[in-house]
């Protein structure tokens, strides 16, 4: 019987003075003045102003006065709030209150997702109406058109003290406009505060059935293109498009972007920067992990307080499934609001994301325990959200003229046992917990016929009483009974065991409060009726409750990256002198024995004998070998949200640069294999894929900071089985229909795309043109201008010849054929076209088009004079590319110096960055690896790996790091056990593998922006 939480709603729909003019009334008009005076309260008028012994006057919907010494005019209902508190009603800036459930669109059969590869092919929107081509862009959605107040769902908000919310349609990438409403149980017309509060965006495609986009980079490209389309739309007459029109119309509103982790904030901020927008972010509350970058966005945040529950770590084997990042986040999440406050970032707190709305105040208090000031906490749930939503003139603080939205509480809201009594919304009272009822706890003297002299000890809590009946003397007895209360009525049951035995049932009323007197009738076990009276004699003996200990708020440091092997401090470049090493220069000097290498300020300073440098850290490299850092020409690590936008045959508008993820353990693992630079490619699902990004393995930096500065742009093309979807399971009852499905079709895709690009280029060159900017064609024009280079996934000779032929006829160049396992068959032609070959050392037989792939391929291409490299396309193989290079010796006896270049200098040349990396030469970047043995050998261990002179990998230090991590995990696990023992609900650890991307990996789950997927280990490339 949760009486305490039961709402008592007014039975009558009361009409106050400002009733809807246009609505007819059934019966006599019932317009009331609605004048109340709340006196003697501690009024927290705003986070900055607390009035003791204050008075609040309201009239109908508005606050008339608030202050200390306010005279109460006649005609006011006076409510004495002595000892109680008044706060402004809370405002939740991010809800879907009153919105209809978004229907979940079926993504293909079986709901397995698949977007562009779904069984249902929906290239353009099927939504009726003159809307845009992509269903995920729906700026035309107006929350006001579908909002309907909901007395059921509003209850949870009201219980927590919320009086108004922003409500949005949480579906799609451009989500249209939201509303601000109060939570009153009135007509929709009356609760509406602002029918166009903000425009909303997200990285989630939602229920849109259109194939495109299937990846996060596709989402970003689509949004960027929409901004350009909208700008173009303003000045054109050919097209009528409601979506673009609405998109333009809502640009003046606050722009709110729903994101997840800090990197997604940065992704959105970059879009904002391009189009002159500063978004407000609704996030997952992980800002503490990158607080400086968050601050630098200059944006405001709407954050949740859904701090994770501790994990159940009782089984140590199961506990192994919890990642270090999860542990750290569990510990640090409650610090997030405090960290934001300290950083001076403006933020509101939402109840969104909570498992149970009951956790709201508990968690907010936890945030205060972790350093959030009470002032800021109040502000973040009242004034800030109100101002963010542009309704600060009506809500957020208690001031004359504002709406009468306030709550009445038993104490400070930050006290653990605080009770919210009433939540007034626009002058309407909503009772959360009855306020003016006497506390019935105490000892009573119960008398009545057939009862004898009994002492009732009423205990428990108001709302959930317990009772014990005591009778002293000869037939002494002590028995537990039941005590129920409803309003002024009480019911008491107990069994005295003997004299009489059986249940005695008493029913009565509170007849006096001084002293508390209960009186009524009762029924004895034998059925006789009796009259009874119970009179308060003394306070109840209340068992002292154990004081709950303050949580242990000592937390570990934030680490960079926020995961295993992260560092509290990002390591810095050191002036280092390697003495007496075997140095593979990759220059004309060849392999130098007993040679020193000096690095300084991130660059190679000198290579030679007997070098010395003051202040340099000296490393004895006797017996060891130094090479340039390994360069992987074909990698799919360190990207999130999918690396294939395969929903269309041409997706040159998507960019890996938009979805880099610097928190990928493979960056670190590959450093431990000597890799310092990786070319992160779009996948191979379509003939013209997306734009690639060259990165350096800088462990702990932000995604943008990984980018290889000044490296020229690249784009991925692909040929063969993947682009023609040969190995797609054909769905039952429907064929694969995305063009192309044959190598014949692939050629036509290229010819068509470049014909369009040429026409576009010409049209854009005309002065005063109004040609729509097309990001897809822009990239193709860059190719035609030779400012963007092609790396093309390719296998068999026919298609390789085809693309060279198309390139010749259309006037563009191919930079690199990647995979190129039949390169040995066309090496002479590649050489003639000056096209590089980046291949696998020994892969074959994983599909039909590699039936004649041979491990001598690299050797043959190299012999013929093709610039040749070995790549990985595989997070595992990437960390032993040195060995793969060694296989050029196994298969074909390549000279060892040349073999090493396959994974260092040659890929650097392919990427046009050999002026910076790829060899050991003074002036070049200090990207170096110190090996224990011949770097091509299976026995070689990468002992140290430097990027820009920074030792990101150090085998010896790694051991220490592991030890420290183990210890920290142990510490956090102890804390989790304590938290669990203290009563926190625990979540069970479950085995979830990270997703590894390869060429063919297709994003299956378009709702997932932050990948938490199961590994899909395809052995197909």
């Amino acid at each position, binding site marked *: 019987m949760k009486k305490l939480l039961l709402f008592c709603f007014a039975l009558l729909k009361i009409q106050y003075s400002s009733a809807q003019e246009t609505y007819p009334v059934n019966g006599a008009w019932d317009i009331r003045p609605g004048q109340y005076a709340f006196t003697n309260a501690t009024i927290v008028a705003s986070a900055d102003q607390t009035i003791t012994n204050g008075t609040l006057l309201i009239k109908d919907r508005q606050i008339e006065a608030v202050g200390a010494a306010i005279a109460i005019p006649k005609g006011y209902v006076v409510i004495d709030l002595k000892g109680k508190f008044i706060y402004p009603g809370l405002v939740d800036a991010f809800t879907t209150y009153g919105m209809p459930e978004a229907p979940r669109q079926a993504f293909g059969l079986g709901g397995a997702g698949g977007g562009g590869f779904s069984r249902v092919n929906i290239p353009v929107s099927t939504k009726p109406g003159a809307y845009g081509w992509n269903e995920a862009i729906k700026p035309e959605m107006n929350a006001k058109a579908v909002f309907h107040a909901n007395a059921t769902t509003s209850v949870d908000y009201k219980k927590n003290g919320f009086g108004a919310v922003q409500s949005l349609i949480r579906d799609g990438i451009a989500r249209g406009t939201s509303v601000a409403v109060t939570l009153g149980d009135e007509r929709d017309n009356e609760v509406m505060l602002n029918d166009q509060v903000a425009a909303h965006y997200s990285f989630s495609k939602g229920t849109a059935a259109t194939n495109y986009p299937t990846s996060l980079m596709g989402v970003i490209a689509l949004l960027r293109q929409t901004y350009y389309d909208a700008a173009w739309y303003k000045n054109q007459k050919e097209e009528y498009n409601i979506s673009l029109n609405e998109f333009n119309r809502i640009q003046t509103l606050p722009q709110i972007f729903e994101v997840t982790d800090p990197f997604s904030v940065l992704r959105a901020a970059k879009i904002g920067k391009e189009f002159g927008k500063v978004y407000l972010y609704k996030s997952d509350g992980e800002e503490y992990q990158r607080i400086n970058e968050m601050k630098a966005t200059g944006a405001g945040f709407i954050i949740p307080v859904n701090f994770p529950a501790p994990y159940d770590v009782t089984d140590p*084997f*199961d506990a*192994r499934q919890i*990642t270090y*990042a999860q542990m750290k986040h569990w510990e640090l999440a409650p610090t997030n609001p405090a960290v934001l406050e300290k950083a001076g970032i403006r933020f509101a707190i939402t109840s969104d994301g909570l498992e149970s709305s009951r956790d709201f105040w508990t968690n907010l208090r936890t945030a205060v325990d972790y350093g959030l000031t009470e002032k800021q906490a109040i502000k973040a749930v009242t004034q800030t959200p109100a101002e963010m939503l542009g309704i600060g003139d009506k809500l957020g603080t208690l001031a004359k003229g504002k709406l009468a939205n306030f709550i009445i509480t038993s104490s400070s809201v930050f006290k653990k046992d605080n009770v919210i009594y009433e939540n007034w919304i626009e002058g309407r009272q909503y009772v959360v917990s009855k306020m003016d009822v006497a506390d019935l706890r105490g000892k009573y003297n119960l008398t009545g016929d057939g009862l004898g002299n009994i002492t009732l000890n009423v205990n428990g809590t108001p709302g959930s009483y317990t009772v014990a009946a005591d009778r002293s003397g000869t037939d002494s007895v002590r028995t537990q009974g039941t005590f129920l209360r409803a309003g002024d009525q009480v019911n008491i049951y107990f069994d005295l065991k003997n004299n009489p035995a059986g249940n005695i049932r008493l029913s009565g009323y509170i007849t006096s409060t001084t002293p508390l007197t209960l009186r009524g009738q009762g029924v004895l076990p034998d059925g006789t009726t009796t009259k009874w009276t119970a009179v308060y004699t003394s306070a109840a003996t209340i068992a002292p409750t154990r004081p709950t200990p303050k949580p242990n708020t000592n937390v570990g440091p934030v680490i960079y990256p926020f995961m*295993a*092997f992260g560092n509290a401090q990002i390591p810095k470049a050191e002036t280092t002198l390697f003495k007496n090493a075997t140095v593979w220069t990759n220059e004309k000097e060849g392999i130098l024995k007993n040679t020193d290498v000096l690095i300084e300020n991130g660059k190679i300073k000198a290579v030679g004998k007997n070098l010395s440098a003051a202040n340099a850290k000296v490393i004895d490299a006797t017996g060891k070998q130094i090479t340039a850092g390994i360069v992987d020409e074909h990698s799919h690590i360190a990207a999130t949200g999918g690396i294939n936008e395969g929903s269309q045959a041409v997706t040159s508008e998507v960019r890996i640069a938009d979805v880099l993820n610097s928190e990928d*353990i*493979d960056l*670190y*693992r590959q450093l*431990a294999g000597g890799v310092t630079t990786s070319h992160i490619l779009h996948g191979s699902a379509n003939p013209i894929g997306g734009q690639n990004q060259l990165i350096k393995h800088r462990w702990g930096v932000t995604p943008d900071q990984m980018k290889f500065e000044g490296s020229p742009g690249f784009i991925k093309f692909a040929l063969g089985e993947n682009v023609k979807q040969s190995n797609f399971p054909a769905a039952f009852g429907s064929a694969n229909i995305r063009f192309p499905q044959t190598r014949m079709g692939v050629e036509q895709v290229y010819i068509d795309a470049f014909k369009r690009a040429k026409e576009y280029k010409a049209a854009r060159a005309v002065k005063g043109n109004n040609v729509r900017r097309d990001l897809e064609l822009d990239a193709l024009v860059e190719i035609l201008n030779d400012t963007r280079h092609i790396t093309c996934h390719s296998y068999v000779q026919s298609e390789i010849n085809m693309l060279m032929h198309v390139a010749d006829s259309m006037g563009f160049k191919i930079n690199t054929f990647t995979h190129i396992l039949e390169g*040995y*068959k066309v090496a002479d032609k590649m050489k003639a076209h000056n096209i590089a070959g980046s291949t696998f050392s*020994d892969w*074959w*037989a994983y*599909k*039909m088009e590699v*039936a*004649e792939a*041979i491990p001598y391929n690299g*050797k*043959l291409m190299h*012999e*013929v004079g093709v610039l040749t490299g070995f790549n990985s396309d595989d997070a*595992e193989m990437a960390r*032993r590319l040195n*060995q793969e290079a*060694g*296989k050029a*010796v*196994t*298969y*074909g*006896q390549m000279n060892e110096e040349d073999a090493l270049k396959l994974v260092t200098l040659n890929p650097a040349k392919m990427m046009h960055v050999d002026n910076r990396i790829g060899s050991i030469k003074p002036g070049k970047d200090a990207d170096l690896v110190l090996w224990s*043995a011949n770097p*091509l*050998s*299976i*026995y*070689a*261990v990468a002992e140290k790996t430097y990027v820009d002179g920074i030792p990101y990998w150090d085998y010896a230090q*790694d051991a220490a790091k*592991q030890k420290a*991590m183990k210890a920290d*995990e142990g510490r956090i696990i102890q804390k989790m056990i304590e938290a669990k023992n203290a009563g926190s609900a625990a979540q*069970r650890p*479950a*085995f*979830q593998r*990270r997703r*590894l991307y390869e060429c063919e990996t297709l994003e299956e*789950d378009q*709702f*997932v*922006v932050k990948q938490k997927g*199961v590994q899909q280990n395809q*052995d*197909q490339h």
Partner: protein
Amino acid sequence: MKKIFLSLGELLFATILAFGQANISPAKPQSKPVLITGATIHVGNGQVIENGYIAFDKGKITAIGSGTAPNASFSEVILANGKQLYPGFICPITTLGLVEFESVRATIDDEETGDVNPNVRSLIAYNTDSKVIPTVRSNGILLAQPTPEGGLVSGQSSVVQLDAWNWQDAAYKTDIGMHLTWPIARAARTRRGPQAAGAAAQETPADRAQRVIDELSKYFSEAKAYAEMAKPKVANLRFEAMKGLFNGTKMLFVNAEGAKEITQAINFAKKYGIKEVIVGGNESYLVTDVLKDNNVPVILRETQRLPDKDEDDVYLPYKLPKLLQDAGVLYGLTGIGFWRQRNLPFEAGEAVGYGLTKEQAVQMITLNNAKILGIDKTTGTLEVGKDATLFISKGDALDMVTLNVDTAFIQGRNINLDNLHKQLYKKFAGKYGVEAKL
């Protein structure tokens, strides 16, 4: 329409095979005694014989030692001075000969439909004409265990030698064991977002796994009871096939990676008195005591893989053999798949940089694998009386910089080391007029 597609596909396939023909015949049986001298002989049990000789006749080793060979007449003497000589590497748990192209269904014969197929046998699907086998053989892998995959009980495997006209010729030890994949409690992929209110409580991953284990126990109990019947009225092919597990003639190979799963699997086999081998064993290093106490060996799957957890030592897979070596657990090694098995020597060599000795690494893929497969009486080391299954490499066979197999014998037969890849190499080296260095 479908039909046309099919025949078209077949036609295409046939064409490719035609021009990709690697005409390599199996060798004739050993007809004369052979002596190899001057080699550094890696015996397979950790021993190394410098300047060693080895003699064999009728497929069996007749003498092995250091220095000058005992006086005997040999019609063939191979001088292997400065070269390395190894027992043939043994590749357990592979789909070699069962799969030709991973993505072409018609060429895939390693996975039968259904969850419980103890009666299916990989041996008869083993394709001795696979173009892949010679490419693997060229790197010193001379014996393999083609293994069925998939489902819960995948079927039975045999050991084959890699130079044969047909599967009967290839069979080295037939139907040695049954393959089981241990159920794992793995969280299902879920979409983000709140669960619908009032959604029914779902079976937890752990509960789901336990349910499968319970079903498996029931199945094995029934199979065991069946095995005790003299003449069952109604024959059950599956139970018939499982008899060998209970009378000790067949092993149970259990795919299990996690410490918990390995422990469960060991307890399971113990309950039925089954001889068991753990396959995979990524977390075997956490339960070495359980493995040792129960005498259960582990066949590690690849050293060249990624650690399972972000938190794991980045080199953990490389270090795993050493961890088991130090703990005294019997361990072997396989690569994965089929064509990749030509990297088995490197998979073994990988552990050397991380603590294993070179000879321990050799032993891992020779004697240890032979022991685990129950063929160590006749192969796995170079000892008098054992098969003359061995190869000569110009350099260290575990290292890509030096591996270069120039001669190989399987049971005394001097096998052809040519393969499709070498043929294509030579063909195109010829086109460009460059030397094809092998």
